[in-house]
């Protein structure tokens, strides 16, 4: 399998002495949908900045599709599309002109650039706004415009730095569908996000970065199996008088309110046994849901472990 991006022992110390990256090594395979997670200030945006050459690294090596970013500047930049965290297009330019100009920077002739702009503005639902000044767009539209701009030269690797920040849930889901679609068509995607549900739904592999170091780098499914326990909220059809005591090991039950209970089930415990035990106590479950996102639980536990070291 071809490696889309390979980072070796990346260090970055800013002029004020802050050490943002302390030796990161990472590989993302071609075609992957990869999540790069971490708390604020962990080093995610610095890593993206180094890959896109906006941040000068202090040490280390970056290769895009097997080519060094220093020695193969043209080829590696051509393979890369970046959607930054902050809005960074000219707010006085027309929507269509922003995409066409970006395509021009990548050497696309004007006619082809116009066609690409139409393709991606249509796909991202911005075609009707093509002649509007970009400052008149809503926050979600501005985010989509940055995605259209990054795709104008059809890169093989797309890096998105919190693309759905501040975007409403309906729009976020439509962006997920779009990203899933372009990933299925062969574009490798690296995503940073604070919405862990988003990472869990979209990404196949994951790295967690904290204080400038990678503290976890694994397959998403494998990571989720490492959960020690899961907590569910069960809604009851009838009123629950008191917290039911279940005769099951590794299951903890707590009443939340008159019609719902919180059940913590340890890893390996069959959840059907919980339903059966609740039925014995006369509790008929009408619905259930995870109390917190599974990845969120793991993410916080990894950060706590790293903080304790």
């Amino acid at each position: 399998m071809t490696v889309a991006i390979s980072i070796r022992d990346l260090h970055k110390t800013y002029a004020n002495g802050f050490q943002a990256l302390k030796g990161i090594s990472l590989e993302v395979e071609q075609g992957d949908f990869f999540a790069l997670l971490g708390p604020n200030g962990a080093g995610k945006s610095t890593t993206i900045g180094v890959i896109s050459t906006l941040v000068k690294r202090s040490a280390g090596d970056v290769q895009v599709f097997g080519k060094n970013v220093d020695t193969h500047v043209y080829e590696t930049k051509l393979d890369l599309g970046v959607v930054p965290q902050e809005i960074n297009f000219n707010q006085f330019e027309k929507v269509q002109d922003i995409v066409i100009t970006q395509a021009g920077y990548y050497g696309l002739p004007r006619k082809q650039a116009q066609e690409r702009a139409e393709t991606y503005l249509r796909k991202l639902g911005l075609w009707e706004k093509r002649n509007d000044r970009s400052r008149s767009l809503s926050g979600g539209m501005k985010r989509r415009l940055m995605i259209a701009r990054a795709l104008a030269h059809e890169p093989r690797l797309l890096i998105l730095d919190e693309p759905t920040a501040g975007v409403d849930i309906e729009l976020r889901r439509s962006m997920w569908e779009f990203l899933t679609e372009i990933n299925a068509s062969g574009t490798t995607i690296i995503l940073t996000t604070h919405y862990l549900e988003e990472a869990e739904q979209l990404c196949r592999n994951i790295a967690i970065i904290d204080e400038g170091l990678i503290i976890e780098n694994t397959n998403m499914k494998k990571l989720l199996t490492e959960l020690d326990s899961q907590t569910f909220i069960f809604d009851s059809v009838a009123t629950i008088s008191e917290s039911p005591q279940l005769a099951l090991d590794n299951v903890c039950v707590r009443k939340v309110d008159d019609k719902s209970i919180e059940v913590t089930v340890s890893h390996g415990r069959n959840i059907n046994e919980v339903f059966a035990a609740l039925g014995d106590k006369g509790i008929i479950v009408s619905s259930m849901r995870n109390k917190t996102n599974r990845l969120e639980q793991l993410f916080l536990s990894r950060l706590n472990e790293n903080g304790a070291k």
Partner: protein
Amino acid sequence: MFSDHRYIAFETIVIKEVRRFSRIWLQTLVPPAITIGLYFVIFGNLVGRRIGEMGGFQYMEFIVPGLIMMSVIQNSYSNVVSSFFSQKFQKTVEELLVAPVPNYVILSGVIVGGMARGLAVGVIVTTMSLFFADLSIQYPLITVLTILLTSMLFSLMGFINAVFANSFDDISIIPTFILTPLIYLGGVFYSVQLLPSFWQIVSGLNPIFYMVNTFRYGILGSSDVNVYWAFLILGVFIVGLYTSCIWLLRNGNGIRS
């Protein structure tokens, strides 16, 4: 000079720059036309009639080349400094930096954008001057070459100013405190022959003095300086500034962290 994709990138930058100053023409093209028009009316027409001749020409004829040059210098400089600083300030420069555009293409595009505005204003001012003076260009090649090189030189200076500027105040300090005095003392309104010998030597240290006089030589056929010497000075400044700009871009000063 450029391969295909690089030429397209260069053309894209130039189009973007020209579109920018054309979109805000009320701020970029009209004010210099009004200012220079007032110079023509007040200094050239009203005051100039009382002055009589300067350097062997009617005062109006004498100041026209200097005023055209002044408008080209100021507008080339201010276009680049304001455009590139705004891109830096709004982070839109990142669009260019992540793309496979070599530094010399970025610099060439921005500089040609600055020259385009300087020359556009120059054409407007020249057209206006025809209402006040009969201009017959004596040496067209020297005239065109001087205006192009001067415009390029001050676009490069504007770029350096933009790279080092950290606030909008920083982009007005050099035009106000350095550029304007050098232009006014560069022989736009008077012949250096009028000055005492000490101040004639001091004027010789002002590079704008050579540009104004070479341009005046191209139009009127008369100059206070040696034209070849002036071109040499222009060439040295351009090479020095261009090298500095490329170094700043490569080093990422003010644009890469």
